[in-house]
């Protein structure tokens, strides 16, 4: 079965090609069906592969060679797929959620004129994402890595007539490229150090290198992860990326692509284990991002922006876990996060769909009656993300926090605060959206309707997964085995949790109780007291204003990077290049011309002068030769 792994990326590719070449001529239904079936086929193959792996616990990985790609002396980069526990898990997430989102999109995008184009991009994205996780060496991962970046670019800017969207797309691509450069240099350093970039070769001998090299590699790779997974300081593209259609946000900017950074770090865990310093950086950056994004999420009013900051924050938590060495826990969280965040995004999409494109929660309210399915599923998702006991998010988050506590209580503290903040702003969103009176226009109210089946079906499936998804990673002390931890054992050895059971219970309790308290607080504020977000910026308190404006990070970047770059470029173009560099060249020409018009004056036409010049020449020559 594993041999068929090539089919997994192949189906989306075929779907992409069919839609790409003939999409315009096909009916929308056919186009969407082809795309969805392609992903479904991949999902089925992935499942088969997954079970294949489960059945043969002794063989941990399979390498499937497709063709030889780049060769340069000792550098061999075959186009190879690696099927192991980690990649097969990701395959399932990608194709599974991908499939659901395809289905959802059929409904969501139905009115759009770029329907087939949308599915073309979506299939292409899945293809690249699969390459990313399937590749058996860093460069194939990089191929997928950049490929998904491209698709992200295309999909964010899907409505290409809107300049703001285009800018967001461009920003996403360029910020990702900054990270990619780090990644690329990391890959090169791996090659230079180990003479290969295939996982098998590298990890086998990785311990042979010294720690500083490992640190360098780990940090360079992490720069790549920062870009792709929207960590400080390269996170600003992700909220902007919400410009894309909502299914895109769900698939790419929540469930799959942005978790590529986590996948990469888990994949490269050897280096991080070798380098405590790098791990510390990862943990600190992770927690800082988590907290930072969570605070911003508190005061956002755009339903998708809130979810976007929430994603950034959750990703930060995952990195925090990675930094603490909790690799499988982070993967676990990736998975549960994929469920509930995709759910939330799709739910938000459904809301937006119903509201006729409105995204501001201040214009919503009381939607639970009009959108019962959406409401219910989203509510479950919110509970999951808030870490309410029993839901999937609770288990995965708790596992990360437990490991972090062991690693560093300080980081744990901030991580916990983050998750409490998450609960708060998520419930703020829920309360403002679904409870209370409707605050939109009459026309909107009139048109409110539940979304079609194709959209609610994925919501329901994801809601179920969000609720029960935590079961695959139950804490060990419950007597259940942490299935996912064991499953990933061959890929990422996670340090055993040395916390005592009682300690763990205390931590868990703190988290659960905290979450409940925070939710109650949110309830008090937004439900009981009906506090509405302020409309005018001038009414806000300074801190609130600061947070509302996302700490002015975009403005700071603009001021620190874009403006100077433009300014320098302008100076270079206008003055340095034209006036100085070219000026010298032209100056030589002018000088020759000028000199010429001066020197030619020597030719006076007067014989006496000519003779005199000759004589002077003769004098000079004789003087030089005989007297000096």
């Amino acid at each position, binding site marked *: 079965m594993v041999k068929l792994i090539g089919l997994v990326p192949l189906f989306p590719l075929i779907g992409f090609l069919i839609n790409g070449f003939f999409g315009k001529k096909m009916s929308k239904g056919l186009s969407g069906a082809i795309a969805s079936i392609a992903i479904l086929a991949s999902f089925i193959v992935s499942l088969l592969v997954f079970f294949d792996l489960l059945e043969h616990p002794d063989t941990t990985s399979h390498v499937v060679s497709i063709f030889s790609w780049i060769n340069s002396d000792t550098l061999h980069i075959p186009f190879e797929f690696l099927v192991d526990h980690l990649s097969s898990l990701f395959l399932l997430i990608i194709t599974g959620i991908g499939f659901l989102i395809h289905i959802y999109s059929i409904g969501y995008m139905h009115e759009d004129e770029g329907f087939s184009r949308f599915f073309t991009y979506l299939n292409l994205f899945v293809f690249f994402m699969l390459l990313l996780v399937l590749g058996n060496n860093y460069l194939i991962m990089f191929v997928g890595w950049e490929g998904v970046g491209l698709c992200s670019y295309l999909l964010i800017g899907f409505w290409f007539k809107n300049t703001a969207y285009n800018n967001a797309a461009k920003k996403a691509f360029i910020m990702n490229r900054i990270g990619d450069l780090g990644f690329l240099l990391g890959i090169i350093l791996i090659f230079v150090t180990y003479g290969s970039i295939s996982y098998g070769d590298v990890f086998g001998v990785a311990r042979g290198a010294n720690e500083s090299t490992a640190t360098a590699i780990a940090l360079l790779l992490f720069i790549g992860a920062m870009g792709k997974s929207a960590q400080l300081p390269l996170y600003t593209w992700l909220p902007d990326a919400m410009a894309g259609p909502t299914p895109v946000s769900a698939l790419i900017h929540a469930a799959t692509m942005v978790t590529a950074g986590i996948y990469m770090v888990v994949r490269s865990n050897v280096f991080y284990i070798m380098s405590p310093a790098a791990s510390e950086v990862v943990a600190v950056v992770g927690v800082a991002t988590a907290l930072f994004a969570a605070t911003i999420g508190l005061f956002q009013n755009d339903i998708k922006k809130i979810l976007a900051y929430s994603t950034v924050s959750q990703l930060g938590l995952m990195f925090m876990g990675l930094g603490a060495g909790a690799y499988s826990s982070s993967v676990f969280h990736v998975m549960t996060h994929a469920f509930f965040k995709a759910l939330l995004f799709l739910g938000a999409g459904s809301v937006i769909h119903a509201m006729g494109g409105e995204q501001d929660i201040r214009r919503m309210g009381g939607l639970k009656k009009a959108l019962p399915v959406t409401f219910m599923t989203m509510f479950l998702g919110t509970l999951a993300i808030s870490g309410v006991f029993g839901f999937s998010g609770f288990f995965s988050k708790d596992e990360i926090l437990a490991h972090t506590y062991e690693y560093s209580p300080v980081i744990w503290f901030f991580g916990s605060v983050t998750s409490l903040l998450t609960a708060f702003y998520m419930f703020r969103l829920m309360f403002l959206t679904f409870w209370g009176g409707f605050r939109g226009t009459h026309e909107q109210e009139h048109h409110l309707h539940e979304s079609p089946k194709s959209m609610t079906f994925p919501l329901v499936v994801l809601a179920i997964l969000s609720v029960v998804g935590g079961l695959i990673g139950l804490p060990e002390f419950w007597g259940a085995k942490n299935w996912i931890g064991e499953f990933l054992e061959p890929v990422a050895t996670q340090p055993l949790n040395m916390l005592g059971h009682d300690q763990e219970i205390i931590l868990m309790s703190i988290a659960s109780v905290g979450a409940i308290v925070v939710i109650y607080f949110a309830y008090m504020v937004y439900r009981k007291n009906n506090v509405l977000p302020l409309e005018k910026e001038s009414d806000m308190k300074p801190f609130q204003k600061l947070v509302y404006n996302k700490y002015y990070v975009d403005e700071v970047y603009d001021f620190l990077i874009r403006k100077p770059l433009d300014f320098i470029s302008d100076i270079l173009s206008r003055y340095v290049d034209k006036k100085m560099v070219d000026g010298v060249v032209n100056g030589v020409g002018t000088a020759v011309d000028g000199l010429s018009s001066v020197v030619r004056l020597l030719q006076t036409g007067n014989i*006496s002068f000519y003779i*005199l010049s000759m*004589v*002077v020449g*003769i*004098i000079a020559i*004789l*003087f030089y*030769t*005989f*007297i000096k």
Partner: protein
Amino acid sequence: MLGYTITQWLFGILSFLAIMFALMVVFTRNPINSVLYLVLTFFCIAGHYLLLNAQFLAVVHIVVYAGAIMVLFLFVIMLMNLNQDTEPQKTVISKVVAAIAGGLLLFVMVGALRGSEQLQIKQYGHSDIGLVKNLGNVLFHDFLFPFEIASVLLLAAMVGAIMIGKKEIK
């Protein structure tokens, strides 16, 4: 006389005169006078030739230069009616510059022409190389080719002068 031989006296006087007349050629304003001074210079040079035992050459020199070439000059000057003192002169500056250039040229030439003492002095006094017979031998034996080819030169000059001098016939 003052330790100099007659030849040395003669050399001195002739040289002095030659230089003086030469200078007069350059500095006299009237072209006719210039011509006359040049003729005098040529006579002095002829004197030198005699001193150097080049008798035949001295005669030829007088005949060709004083007798033919200078007369030609005179004719032309008179033809053009340039016999006047008021001909345009160079500015003082250019004259000074010319003089300075000349002085410098003299200076470097003197510097360049040192070292003639090394020349081995050969027998002097009884040589008869300057006699017609000797010259003829050399001219028609060693210098036969140049002699012949000189005719081409003279032909060319003749044709050229005639062609230039002839009035254009339309």
